């Protein structure tokens, strides 16, 4: 439908410069420039290197996305950008670019939450999100269970990791096994030839008195390292495929078990899985199996939409426009620790909750008509 909102989204929270363009629930372009190779030799994302790469890639990636989508910048209904959470300096490059494009083109600006965007991207794959949706977000930066009654305004954290993110555990185990960075795809690949039951690694926070929706992967990571070191110390070969498969099984077992439990206990019949780790083949297959058993509909977007990208930000921006949500002010900050409950950031001029009595003096939101 031509009257659906046409939105460009910019994502720079980590090492990918992502620019996506969507019309409503339709993906028109998804351009990504990644600096991952620049970080590989450090074994992790180096913030200053990421920020430098974003600055270089920003304008060319926007131009590429517009060309791919076959639309003119002047046709856009809005520009959305990740305002947080993420690396502060990296976020700031995207936020600054988004402001300049929005201001120069006379379009509303939407500063949105990275995590909510990860959920909303599935609208590009499977259509409108049911309300509420349960979402399991797993990546190198996040491991969260979120209940989303309204993806533009109401996202509730049920649980998250208390130590390492799931993706971090993959990276660290890959390093122990000498598989390189990023670890997720490497572990997944080796695990295919291994036996997931070969070694029984611990399942963190699954005891009866543990927080039902929180995760812990630090103990698992340490257990894998100890096991591998013990083998080496005793002069035994390390069965890389079996270790990878058994570790991976421990991670996805806990993730899916808790996600299904959250769905059941909240009466939600849809589970969305997103984030870079959602590309893991075993997570997908186990989640599908367990969802089918529990009568839950599983929604996992294609791999390219699971990792960080601009399309997910555009998807949430388009939903914001469609639902007439307020746009952001020009003093929109980049907030490296933006809580997931803040789905969008109307800008500094917006009152804090405790200042509600003065809200009329401070609210100064922009519509399409009064941008200048």
């Amino acid at each position: 439908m031509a009257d659906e909102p046409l939105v460009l989204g910019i994502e720079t929270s980590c090492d990918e410069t992502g620019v996506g363009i969507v019309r409503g629930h339709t993906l028109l372009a998804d351009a990504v420039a990644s600096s991952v190779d620049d970080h590989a030799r450090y074994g992790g994302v180096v913030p200053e290197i990421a920020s430098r790469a974003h600055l270089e890639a920003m304008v060319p990636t926007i131009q590429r996305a517009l060309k791919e989508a076959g639309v003119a910048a002047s046709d856009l209904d809005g520009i959305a950008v990740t305002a947080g959470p993420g690396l502060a300096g990296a976020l700031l490059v995207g936020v600054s670019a988004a402001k300049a494009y929005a201001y120069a083109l006379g379009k509303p600006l939407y500063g949105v939450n990275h995590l909510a965007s990860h959920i909303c991207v599935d609208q590009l794959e499977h259509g409108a999100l049911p309300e509420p949706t349960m979402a399991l977000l797993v990546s190198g930066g996040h491991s969260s269970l979120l209940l989303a009654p309204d993806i533009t305004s109401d996202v509730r954290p049920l649980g998250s990791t208390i130590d390492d993110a799931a993706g971090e555990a993959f990276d660290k185990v890959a390093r122990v096994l000498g598989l390189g960075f990023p670890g997720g795809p490497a572990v997944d690949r080796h695990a295919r030839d291994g036996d997931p039951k070969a070694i029984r690694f611990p399942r963190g926070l699954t005891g009866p008195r543990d927080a039902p929706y929180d995760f812990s992967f630090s103990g698992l990571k340490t257990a894998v390292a100890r096991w591998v070191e013990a083998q080496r110390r005793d002069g035994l070969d390390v069965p890389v495929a079996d270790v990878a498969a058994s570790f991976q099984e421990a991670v996805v077992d806990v993730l899916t078990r808790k996600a299904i439990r959250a769905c059941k206990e909240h009466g939600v019949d849809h589970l969305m899985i997103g984030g870079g780790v959602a590309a893991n083949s075993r997570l997908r297959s186990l989640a599908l199996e367990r969802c089918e058993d529990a009568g839950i509909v599983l929604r996992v977007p294609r791999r390219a939409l699971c990792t960080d990208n601009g399309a997910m930000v555009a998807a949430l921006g388009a939903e914001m426009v469609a639902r007439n949500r307020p746009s952001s002010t020009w003093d929109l900050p980049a907030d490296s620790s933006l809580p997931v409950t803040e789905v969008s950031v109307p800008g500094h001029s917006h009152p804090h909750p405790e200042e509600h009595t003065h809200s009329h003096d401070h609210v100064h939101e922009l519509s399409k008509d009064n941008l200048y």
Partner: protein
Amino acid sequence: MTAALHDGGRVLAESTVVDARRHGELLMPAVDRVLGEAGAAIGDVTGIVVGTGPGPYTGLRVGLVTAAAFGDALGVPVHGICTLDGIAYAAGLAGVEGPFVVATDARRKEVYWARYDSPREPVTEPAVDRPADIAQAVAGLPAVGAGAALYPEVFTDVRAPEHQSAGALAALGALRLAEGAEFAPPLPLYLRRPDAQVPAGYKAVLPK
């Protein structure tokens, strides 16, 4: 953080705020304010001049990406000017003549600096150094910039201005445009390699 609008003849409006940590929040409201004061709209702008540093990276990137995005969205050229050249030009406007030094705060007990024969004639490339290491090179010369004010034992003749002004930067840009002079590409002068700690292998958890 400084923004100004120049019409080729004079500065129409300028906004300067010294706040090293909030460039991202302050810049676009400042642009909006400056345009409003001048009674102009962003679409009236025919070119962008941007400071390329050296300077603190985060703020530098905010300025450069904003300029690049403006340039792309408006279809106008973006011209880079070394930040130290901008301050040198402002020093000239403030009455500093003859050989002098521009030094800004590079943090970590270092300064970004360059020597000038006159406000438009740099004689050294921008560099980052510890003040004590350049004491001989700058001895006896007047010095401008916040970095000079920080190290009075090295910069013994500190003059105004202390900070960059977009008005002076735009004026210098307008002059160079009128002369058909070359601009620097609108790319950052970092002068330092990125801080990147290579993790020292993985840490063994079992006692050896």
